[in-house]
């Protein structure tokens, strides 16, 4: 048996890294604007496997990740206003955030 290893958060490729992994030590929070949180169903349970889209101030797609088993998502953006849009089998939902450098947390609730 081999132990599964979480893919490293590097920018060599383009796939989204493991959304449940801790922030790597190489991420400099003085420079990075991290937008992170949880997708919740109407009853408050986290939604795993939801697709979370990060839209810029004009509503244009910037990135998309799939939530972890605990419903977590994480983006590396820039300071400013962003919209998060979550799609799931349980319905969709939106949330807005005005992000600053460092870690910005919020949740997105989906409903059908």
């Amino acid at each position, binding site marked *: 048996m081999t132990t599964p290893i979480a893919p490293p958060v590097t*920018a060599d490729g*383009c796939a989204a890294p*493991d959304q449940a992994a801790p922030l790597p030590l190489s991420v400099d929070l003085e420079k990075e604007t991290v937008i992170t949180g949880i997708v919740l169903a109407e009853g408050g349970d986290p939604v795993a496997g939801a697709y979370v889209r*990060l839209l810029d101030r004009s509503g244009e797609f910037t990135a998309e990740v799939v939530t972890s088993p605990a419903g977590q998502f*994480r983006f590396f953006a820039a300071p400013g206003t962003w919209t998060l849009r979550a799609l799931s089998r349980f319905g969709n939902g939106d949330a807005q955030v005005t992000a600053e450098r460092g870690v910005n947390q919020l949740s997105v609730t989906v409903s059908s």
Partner: protein
Amino acid sequence: MSRDSSLVSADWAEKNLNTPGVVFVEVDEDTTAYDGGHIAGAVKLDWRQDLQDPVRRDFVNKQQFEALLSSRGIANNDTVVLYGGNNNWFAAYAYWYFTLYGHGDVKLLDGGRKKWELDARPLVKDLPQREATQYSAKDQDLSIRAFRDDAVRAIGVQNLVDVRSPDEYAGRLLAPAHLPQEQAQRAGHIPTALSVPWSKAANEDGTFKSDDELRTIYGDAGLDDSKDTIAYCRIGERSSHTWFVLQELLGKKNVKNYDGSWTEYGSLVGVPVALGDEPGEA
């Protein structure tokens, strides 16, 4: 090429899971998605480990590609249906790659993994058993692949299409926003490149927009059909998605994917770079 010959729907796929001669192939960079559940019978290709040379920055060569497909049990006359995560970015990359090496019948599953999951269609963990084949590839078809010198020569002359997000185009971000932003290359875009993010071509569920909508998007952006076209992004997979739209869905001629893309161009010494939301001057 056209939508009918290059794209299949999730409904078609579900009805043809057991059709002889049809091979489903999931292509991802992070293959843990496949391991957690995939379309029944689908074989796995790892974008990085299987399709990139482990030492040089380039694709696997013809012999390596032949060995790869032979070991996966894919034959020359199989219909290969590609799908994957990230809105089919890496599946589109593999589609371009299969086309580059001359595979006869290759198709993309509309909406990829996302549409399949949102539809709650079945996924399995069983690994397929396929007998090895003797796959024979053709030489690379360089009419669909652009290199850095092609990109430089295209400035102000051909259609250059930058398919990254608007913030990457303008130089406000250096990578897609699910990745850390510390990067070696310079920010910005190739001067005179049009900004048409790949995402304009896709619906929220990852399926492609209609041909009429697509023609309007690229027409309004200023794509000149009398000129050859080079699409690029950061590492060449999102631009494969746009290459697929322009050449395979809309049937445009002389469209190339610049797979070196911004990670190469943005690291070149002495080439021009434009900043901001406008294409800039040649």
